[in-house]
């Protein structure tokens, strides 16, 4: 009797084992559906959905379908711990592909390392995040800041810069790089001020800005509410200096209306990129989401390409084994809306950057493009 029971259970195990091979590949997307990133998060999820649909329609990856598990990280560390924990250990996802705040990413990395799960980070960030499980296909300060500062130096004859940010890793990281770059190119930083992430009254900072005699402003706030309140209050205070915003995306700029007009942005993606791949992507997005489409942007398009990068890496590795996929990720390249992206520079990617200016109708006009900007030494090997 006992041996028969054993046989039956062995047969069951074998059956479930073969079912496992055809199981879908699970992609975890921890993203800030609430909190500071809530403005942009829906567009990120839409990007991921389109990529997954397209890949599944063509037969999936290694014959397996892709599924998405989206979890809210509340745009912060505490929420991210819960979201990563649930995705890595309960849902047992094969990979994490997502755009998040730096606080959320930093909180998630130890969990990713414990679960040995590859993590493709698709948000621009302050740079130098070097977990062996982490790949980044978006820009770092070395790629984003120079176009704006170079343009202000040359075209606006700016010499005195005033920097304003939200008090968190991204805000401070971006602005400390900006400060170093401004000083390296012969300019001077006459003020550098921060407000807590939930702060909403920028009045004293704006008064200092006006008293400082600055001839250009560069800001790096958290996306969403802080960016909106700062821009509104700058405009209400009559500030009309050249204004470079390191954290505004096209969608936010559009909904801000007249207040956003004139802002300079530097991005690896704008909807106006004139390439067949981008036009095909935009057409597929509006076909899939219709009136619900959130404008694709510099935070959502890398998510789309991130899913394709994972597909290419799994196909190259021949399995979803974490170590093999991680090794393959630096070798594969993706032809996406932003061009050819290969994360081969210390797990970061060279990118073509665009300097744009927000027009009064909310659209972004490309003023200049900077091809294949190198991310620099983000994670130099320790020797």
């Amino acid at each position, binding site marked *: 009797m006992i041996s028969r029971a054993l046989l039956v259970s062995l047969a069951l195990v074998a059956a479930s084992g073969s079912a496992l091979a055809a199981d879908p590949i699970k992609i975890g997307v921890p993203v800030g559906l609430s909190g500071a990133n809530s403005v942009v998060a*829906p567009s990120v999820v839409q990007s991921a959905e389109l990529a997954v649909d397209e890949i599944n329609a063509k037969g999936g990856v290694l014959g397996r379908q892709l599924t998405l598990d989206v979890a809210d990280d509340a745009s912060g560390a505490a929420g991210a711990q819960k979201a990563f924990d649930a995705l890595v250990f309960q849902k047992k996802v094969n990979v994490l592909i997502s755009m998040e705040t730096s606080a959320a990413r930093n909180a998630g990395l130890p969990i990713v390392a414990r679960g040995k799960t590859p993590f493709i980070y698709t948000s621009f960030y302050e740079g130098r995040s070097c977990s062996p499980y982490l790949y980044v296909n978006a820009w770092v300060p070395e790629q984003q800041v120079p176009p704006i500062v170079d343009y202000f130096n040359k075209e606006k004859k700016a010499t005195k810069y005033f920097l304003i940010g939200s008090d968190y890793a991204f805000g401070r990281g971006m602005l400390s790089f900006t400060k170093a770059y401004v000083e390296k190119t012969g300019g001077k930083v006459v003020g550098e001020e921060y407000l*807590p992430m939930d702060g*909403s009254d920028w009045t*004293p900072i704006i*008064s200092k800005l*006006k*008293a400082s005699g600055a001839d250009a402003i560069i800001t790096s706030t958290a996306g969403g509410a802080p960016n909106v309140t700062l821009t509104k209050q700058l405009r209400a*205070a009559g500030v009309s200096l050249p204004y470079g915003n390191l954290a505004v995306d096209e969608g936010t700029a559009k909904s801000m209306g007249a207040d956003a007009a004139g802002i300079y942005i530097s991005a690896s993606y704008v909807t106006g990129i004139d390439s067949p791949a981008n036009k095909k992507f935009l057409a597929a997005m509006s076909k899939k989401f219709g009136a619900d489409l959130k404008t694709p942007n510099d935070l959502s398009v890398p998510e789309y390409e991130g899913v394709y990068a994972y597909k290419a890496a799994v196909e190259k590795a021949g399995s979803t084994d974490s170590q093999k996929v991680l090794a393959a990720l630096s070798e594969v390249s993706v032809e996406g809306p932003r061009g050819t992206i290969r994360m081969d520079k210390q797990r970061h990617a060279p990118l073509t950057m665009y300097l744009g200016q927000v027009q009064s109708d909310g659209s972004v006009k490309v003023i200049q493009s900077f091809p294949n900007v190198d991310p620099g030494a983000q994670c130099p090997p320790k020797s």
Partner: protein
Amino acid sequence: MLTVALDIVTTAALLFIISSGLLIVFGVMKIINFAHAAFVTVGAYATLVGARLGLPWILVLPLAFVTGAICGALTEAIIVRWLYRRPLDAILATWGLGIVIGQIVTLIFGREVQFVQAPITGTVDLLGVDYSAYRIVMIGAAVIVALVFTTLLNGTRLGLSTRAVIMNEMLAQGLGVDSSRVRLITFAIGSGLAALSGALITPLSSVDPNMGLPWLISAFMLVMVSGGSLMTLAVSSLMLGGLQVIVSTFVNPILGGLTIAICAAIVLRIRPEGFARA
């Protein structure tokens, strides 16, 4: 220097407008309404709806006030009325209610940041300083709020009953004052004021489901320090708001964000009655 002075006065005006609703509720009921932040948010969304319907600004403000007052009246009748003898439970209940309201707002309008066009844009020239016109208007708005509610409290029958309830509720009831009606009306007015303040800050702020929260702690501290009258609230807004601006300007804005909470704690340690009867 003039800019700092203007920053102080306009910041105090904003703080006063936002705290006044909380103060009126606290003064009469000895209850801290932690749903205050949610009512501020409700007011901002009422403004958003009004603006989308194309209402002129002068009608949007009463719309926000009435929306807040209705929410407040319902809250009093359904939740707060049963908790007057349990002020700690009332804090929990109103805090929870604030979360519920925030989620309802999210369900209806989505989590994302919304935008309301400002009725007044640009700057005015004040003694050689270019200053945000809308912030100057806020000073006037604070004065109007103060005048209207001082008159209401000191010049009307309702105000008389309210003051009677504040001083000695048992005695007031004995003299035939319907104290539960007074409380209902006061709570509605306080919530209406919160919503009105939400409407008034929309041109300076984004409209999102959590927009009221950053203001709640400052408002709470100011009400604690001021001890119950609109006059002392104005004084404490000017003093603590002023200190916040000074610290933000001359030290740094992150410490500035802590100033009100720290100063309030110090004031209450030295003078538990705050600025009241000072």
